């Protein structure tokens, strides 16, 4: 009888352990998926930029430099060989697009141009999607790391060698050279 009870306890413990382990694996996969989603949104943005630049370049004569910067940053992001390099380039794209959106307000021709208005909404939505994809990534990382650092997750994480994921740092707007840590260690 006592043997049966002990066996029951052991079985329950193993089931519980498996559940805890699977929970951590699930969170780790969510982190990876969230990371991939950022890529999807960055790709969308990259596809949108040539269209945007073609529409506004005739009108925004005083912003040619900004337009060029966005195009160059995009090219560098596409050709980047390291994640860090790409992170810097993507941050520059974001900065350039943010500036474009801000100055578009100053061009009455653009305000009455239906095509330009649609593009403005499209750029806003695209920037937001990139931002929200990053936010979701950080939210999932927080969950994953909290699960690893609180009891009993910390014991399981230690046993099976789970590592906390890194948060994405948002570059401060006023920094001269944006530093973005895109590395997923």
């Amino acid at each position, binding site marked *: 009888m006592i043997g049966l009870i002990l066996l029951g306890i052991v079985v329950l413990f193993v089931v519980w352990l498996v559940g805890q382990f699977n929970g951590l694996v699930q969170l780790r996969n*969510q982190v990876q998926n969230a990371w991939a989603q950022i890529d999807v949104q960055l790709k969308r943005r990259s596809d949108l930029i040539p269209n945007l630049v073609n529409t506004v370049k005739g009108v925004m004569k005083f912003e040619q430099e900004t337009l060029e910067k966005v195009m160059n940053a995009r090219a560098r992001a596409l050709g980047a060989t390291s994640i860090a390099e790409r992170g810097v380039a993507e941050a520059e794209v974001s900065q350039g697009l943010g500036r474009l959106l801000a100055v578009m307000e100053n061009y009455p021709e653009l305000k009455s141009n239906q095509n330009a208005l649609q593009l403005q909404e499209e750029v806003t939505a695209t920037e937001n999607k990139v931002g929200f994809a990053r*936010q979701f990534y950080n939210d999932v990382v927080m969950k994953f790391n909290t699960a690893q650092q609180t009891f009993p997750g910390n014991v399981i994480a230690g046993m099976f060698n789970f590592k906390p994921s890194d948060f994405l740092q948002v570059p401060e707007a006023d920094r001269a050279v944006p530093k973005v840590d895109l590395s997923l260690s």
Partner: protein
Amino acid sequence: MTHAPQRATFYELQAKNRLNSVLVLVAFFAFVAFLGLGLDWFVFGEMLGVEGGPTVPFFTLFGLAWGAFHAAVSWFGGARQVLHSTHARPARPESSPAEKQFVNVVEEMAIAAGLPVPKTYVVPDDDPNAFAVGRDPEHAAIAVTEGLLAQLDRDELQGVIGHEMSHVRNLDIRALTLVTALFGATVLLSDVARRGLSSRHGRHGSWRSSDNDRGGGGGGMAILFIAWMLVAVLAPILARFLAMAVSRSREYLADASAAELTRNPLGLASALRKLDAAHEPTHQISQGSAHLCITDPRGLRVNERDGAFADWLGTHPPIARRIALLEGMAGVLTPSGESPRSG
């Protein structure tokens, strides 16, 4: 409400609201079970002449089965039915910039919540309102009125969509479906109970004689019986209070989650202010879907007032309190980081 808006993070609010919802659901189940068991014990058992009720709790099972049946019907057909009854049509992002923005914002919020993108619908009505349907995120749809798209700016729209996306993410529609079904079961059981009581009354002539019939049961049973009778008679009203309580706590939770998704509680606060100012009944949205909307579509002033009475009767909390809570959250969310909590 005289005290200052509480500063609570959306995480704390979410945890509290989840607990409240679970408690109310448990109370609802217990309520239906109590009503059904009493019916079996006092009425059905008496009719069969079995002491202590029948071996199979017939009415309890019947009530729960009735609730389950209704839950199943709305589970599989509810979303389509609600969309149909509000005359919602699929959004047309190609032909209307406002609807393009709506679809974009829904996609943004789906990304922020890490959910599949819900279907988007537009209700042809000038009163600003919005609602979500669907039993789970895979089958969800978000609908807004044309008036909402016309009156809100992008940030405000984002707040409203964030609120609806939270209903989807927190499985509120599922919880409310359950509550609605149990509410139906309660009303039915209470009806049967009252009929049973009057027929029993007829057979025995008076309550006293029936108590004496039970013999050994004695005073304790009599008190239990009276309590049960009161509950049976008051059941529809009590059930309504419970249903409204679930609905309200879900609204607070959705507001808190919307702030989490947009990281901008002030967008929703400003949207609620506009919705409040434009408050007239949304004609296209019927009674049955009221609890799904961002503000009560019936334009009931009871939802706007503060105090105990409004607390008990509205499907939605007072808008002023919702705004105050959101603005309180904005205080915590400023970039300066953690600010001290005040009572």
